[in-house]
């Protein structure tokens, strides 16, 4: 409406009201106000008003810009995600950036209600599961922060999940049989329902987890639990934890909170597949897997059944009453482990590798002892069960190192009759580390009597070792297969998951997305790439002027390379070997402090053994660490495994002089300081160190899996297979070499020719005379030429393609 029309309207109104004035005298006031308004409008400077409104608009824009600059300055380094979450109100609750920007539409989403936000987020079931257990990740919704996980009891192994926080319906669920769940899950009925979560309310998790210092003091907390708490300062505004090197900029007071233990979800899989199509095999792995097949009809059921927590070197496994999960169909690859190879493996280690058998027996006792302790409701954590096994071992190691299975059996069997051994072992452990066992002497004696008997009975059962070897082998192999597939495909465990069916000796890899994400399909394509396919691919790429799209190594090549051993392992083995030579050992000892001596030693090693830069640099770092030398010189090569389990025993066996050499600057609590150095030195990648096999989503749980993994077992299996196809050029008369090589290639399509450096020319002559020779309907190609000083020397792998 224009000002002129307003004026004319006021004039009309004035006329109308003037006519009515005699009837109502109070209208005088209204008429006078209207007249004032009319005069004001008449006086108004319209161009000036227009100008000022434009000016006001400009001022508002400047204010917006200033406000934006202020916000950016507060956030310091804004990113797209930061901008996105900066609109959220202040949050006290554990929350995580939703991954919807990078996530497939196909994945099932859980609605996440974030307090103070107008619209909810959507995340996938896996993320929802991890959001229930903050600690694994650094959670953020606003600034980078750590979030405490709140109230927990180390002595409660079965808990109700935050039921109120997760919305489920009766329709979205599936049932599973108890025997398909993990054997340690304390199921109360034969069939258990698994709920598919639909909604997660963060506010309710937050309320469950809030734990203020004053509340702590008011509560009658168990004294032991309170003692085991480390306190951290926590911002009352943004929830950031200040732990010495981090702080928030809120300027509020810090509340003292109990330190968050790290928590890891336990997710179990039930996987099956139909309509399997065989995948082109590999001659070597054809011996280990009786069948490798792809299926587009792989059913996956994922079940969140609890979590493992770690706090101050202790671990707890806590099971959920209510199970959450997800079920979908995807692409998968199934690997059936050959029964024959298991027989061969057990036979081989029983006859020829008593040390590996001994180590497996120790693992078997540790596992069975834990199961017996759980069965007898001692409410021990796994680390406490392990402590019992460690105490028995430490006591025994003071008298000598066990060399055979029988030696190990004696340690655990005599313990039940002589409980003093356990008490002595615990006393020894207490000398070098802080340990706690929540039982008195009598109760410990009772535990030993019951639990070690049960564990021994299981271990001594017929076929028990066979079953254990099979389980450990299949589980370890699953880690190899998954890691190799991830390397080939360039993906991580969010995209590809694995499962091993204990009863059927099957391993599965599956796409972690309903209907698949292409990982297993690609894996099928590149499981084995023939030479002819590679030749065509290179020629095609050059013809079309496009890049060669084949991966440099196919799946089975990566798996084999993984089995041969890593570079770090080779470098560490070189170091151990060098320390065993008295003359070199003296130089190594001097090289820790004398740069010139070290450089000369490294140069000599490089010249004499043609080590690459990686090995030289690795050795350089080891030579600099003097404590490694003093620790490892006291250790026999075959005892690495045992002392990795109980490093305390090695500390106890060290002389006072050695301890002072290892920690020259320590005056108080020398043994504890030495234990740290001993543990560092024992981190060597030797003796089947399984560190590179660890995964984030292992069904066994992140801590338990370590005691169910044996790299040496899988490597031994590989060695058995490889030996079948190996020809040592030094062990056959020259005139029989070719004949034998052709025989091996004809029967198995693969051949490993090996020789020491002195016989390299004979090896090469043999390999190159076999190159291209016809074998059945194939031609022989050289697949690999390698050299490993620590193992077989020179090896040429040939394949009939």
């Amino acid at each position, binding site marked *: 409406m224009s000002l002129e029309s307003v004026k004319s309207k006021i004039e009309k109104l004035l006329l109308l009201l003037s006519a009515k004035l005699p009837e109502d005298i109070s209208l005088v006031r209204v008429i006078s106000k209207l007249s004032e308004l009319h005069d004001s409008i008449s006086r108004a400077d319209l161009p000036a008003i227009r100008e000022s409104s434009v000016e006001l608009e400009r001022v508002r824009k400047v204010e917006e810009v200033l406000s934006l600059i202020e916000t950016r300055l507060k956030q310091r380094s804004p990113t797209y995600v930061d901008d996105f979450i900066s609109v959220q109100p202040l949050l006290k609750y554990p929350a995580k950036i939703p991954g919807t920007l990078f996530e497939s539409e196909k994945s099932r989403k859980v609605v996440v209600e974030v307090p103070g936000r107008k619209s909810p987020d959507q995340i996938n079931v896996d993320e929802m599961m991890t959001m229930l257990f903050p600690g694994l990740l650094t959670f953020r919704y606003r600034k980078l922060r750590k979030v405490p996980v709140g109230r927990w009891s180390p002595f409660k192994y079965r808990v109700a999940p935050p039921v109120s926080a997760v919305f489920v319906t009766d329709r979205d669920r599936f049932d599973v049989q108890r025997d398909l769940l993990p054997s340690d899950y304390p199921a109360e009925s034969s069939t258990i329902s698994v709920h598919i979560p639909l909604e997660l309310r963060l506010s309710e998790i937050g309320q469950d987890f809030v734990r203020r210092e004053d509340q702590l003091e008011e509560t009658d907390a168990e004294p032991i639990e309170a003692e085991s708490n480390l306190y951290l300062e926590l911002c009352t505004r943004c929830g950031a934890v200040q732990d010495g090197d981090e702080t928030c900029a809120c300027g509020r007071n810090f509340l003292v909170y109990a330190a968050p233990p790290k928590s890891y979800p336990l997710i179990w899989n039930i996987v099956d597949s139909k309509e399997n199509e065989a995948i082109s095999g590999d001659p070597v792995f054809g011996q280990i897997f009786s069948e490798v097949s792809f299926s587009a009809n792989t059913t996956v059921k994922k079940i969140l059944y609890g979590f493992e927590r770690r706090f101050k070197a202790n671990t707890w496994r806590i099971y959920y009453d209510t199970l959450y999960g997800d079920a979908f169909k995807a692409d998968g690859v199934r690997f059936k482990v050959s029964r024959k190879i298991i027989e061969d493996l057990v036979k081989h280690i029983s006859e020829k590798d008593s040390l590996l058998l001994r180590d497996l027996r120790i693992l078997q006792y540790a596992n069975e002892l834990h199961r017996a302790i759980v069965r007898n409701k001692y409410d021990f954590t796994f680390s406490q069960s392990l402590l019992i096994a460690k105490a028995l071992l430490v006591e025994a190691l003071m008298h000598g190192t066990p060399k055979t299975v029988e030696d190990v059996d004696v340690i655990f069997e005599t313990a039940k009759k002589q409980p003093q051994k356990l008490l002595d072992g615990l006393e020894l452990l207490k000398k070098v580390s802080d340990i706690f066992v929540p039982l008195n002497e009598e109760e410990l004696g009772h535990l030993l009597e019951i639990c070690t008997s049960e564990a021994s009975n299981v271990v001594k059962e017929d076929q028990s070792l066979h079953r254990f070897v099979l389980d450990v082998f299949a589980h370890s192999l699953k880690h190899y297969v998954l890691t190799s597939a991830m390397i080939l495909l360039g993906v991580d465990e969010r995209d590809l998951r694995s499962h091993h069916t204990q009863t059927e000796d099957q391993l599965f890899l599956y796409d972690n997305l309903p209907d698949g994400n292409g990982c297993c399909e690609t894996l099928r394509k590149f499981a084995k790439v023939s030479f002819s396919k590679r030749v065509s691919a290179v020629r095609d790429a050059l013809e079309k002027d496009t890049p060669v799209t084949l991966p440099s190594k196919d799946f089975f090549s990566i798996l084999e390379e993984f089995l041969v051993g890593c570079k770090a392992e080779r470098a560490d083995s070189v170091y151990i070997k060098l320390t065993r030579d008295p003359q070199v050992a003296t130089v190594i000892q001097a090289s820790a402090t004398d740069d010139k001596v070290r450089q000369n030693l490294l140069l000599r090693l490089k010249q004499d053994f043609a080590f690459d830069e990686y090995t030289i640099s690795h050795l350089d770092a080891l030579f600099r660490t003097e404590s490694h030398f003093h620790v490892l010189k006291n250790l026999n090569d075959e005892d690495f495994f045992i002392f990795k389990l109980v490093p305390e025993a090695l500390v106890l066996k060290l002389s006072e002089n050695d301890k002072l050499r290892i920690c020259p600057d320590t005056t108080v609590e020398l043994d504890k300081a030495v234990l740290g150095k001993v543990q560092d030195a024992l981190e060597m990648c030797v003796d089947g160190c399984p560190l590179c096999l660890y995964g984030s989503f292992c069904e066994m749980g992140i801590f338990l899996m370590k005691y169910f993994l044996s790299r040496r077992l899988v490597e031994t299996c590989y060695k058995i297979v490889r030996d079948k196809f190996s020809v040592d050029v030094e062990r056959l008369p020259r005139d029989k070499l070719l004949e034998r090589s052709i025989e091996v290639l004809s029967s198995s399509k693969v051949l490993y020719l090996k020789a020491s450096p002195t016989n390299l020319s004979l090896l090469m002559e043999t390999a190159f005379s076999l*190159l291209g020779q016809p074998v059945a309907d194939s031609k022989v190609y050289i697949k690999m030429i390698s050299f490993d000083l620590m193992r077989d020397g020179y090896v040429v792998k040939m394949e009939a393609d």
Partner: protein
Amino acid sequence: MLLRWKLTKMRETIQVGEDVQIYDLAVLLGEATKVSAGSPGYLTIVSPWISNVAYYLGSSGLTVGIPAIAFGRRDVVRLLDVIEYLQQDPRSQVRLATLKPSPNKYSGDVIQQVWELRFLLEACERGAKIYFYSSERDIRKIMHPKFLLTSLGVVFGSFNFTKSGRYWNIEDGNYSSTLSPVYFEKKERVEDIISKCKEATFDMLRSLLSEFERRT
């Protein structure tokens, strides 16, 4: 050994076709393996047309796990990389024999000739001996055989030692190892050809290159 050869019914020559790249790579890496172990390398290439051929080691399916052979970790390995590695041992012998450069050698394409000369100059810089063949009397006679001869085997046939010859054209050839009598026949033939060639010095190659660069 030769008797044994016959008894095992192994072939004296192996048919090589499109997979020539695999045989080339195998013998070149075999020679590098010997050098890594402290033995001298031996490589002679006879080809009327020659270039710094690239080998797609990463895509070939062949793996080299010898730490000292650093180029064995690359996806693409060029002939010059191998020559450079072999020449690490002063006792190694690398010889490249080709047709004498001329404006007509690449059907008048001078740029191709310049590329070839640059490669030969670089190979010479790395210690390879370069040989040129030119007919003295009958100008229509040109050197036309192709050999890749190492101490482990010989690849021979119609393939030139160029990208087209090794990857593009439809060619035919053979491979023989040192246990086959054919290897020694071919070795003799190679020596015969080399003896009829003239060695090109570094200065000669540089002046030839300057001359052809001016023409471009």
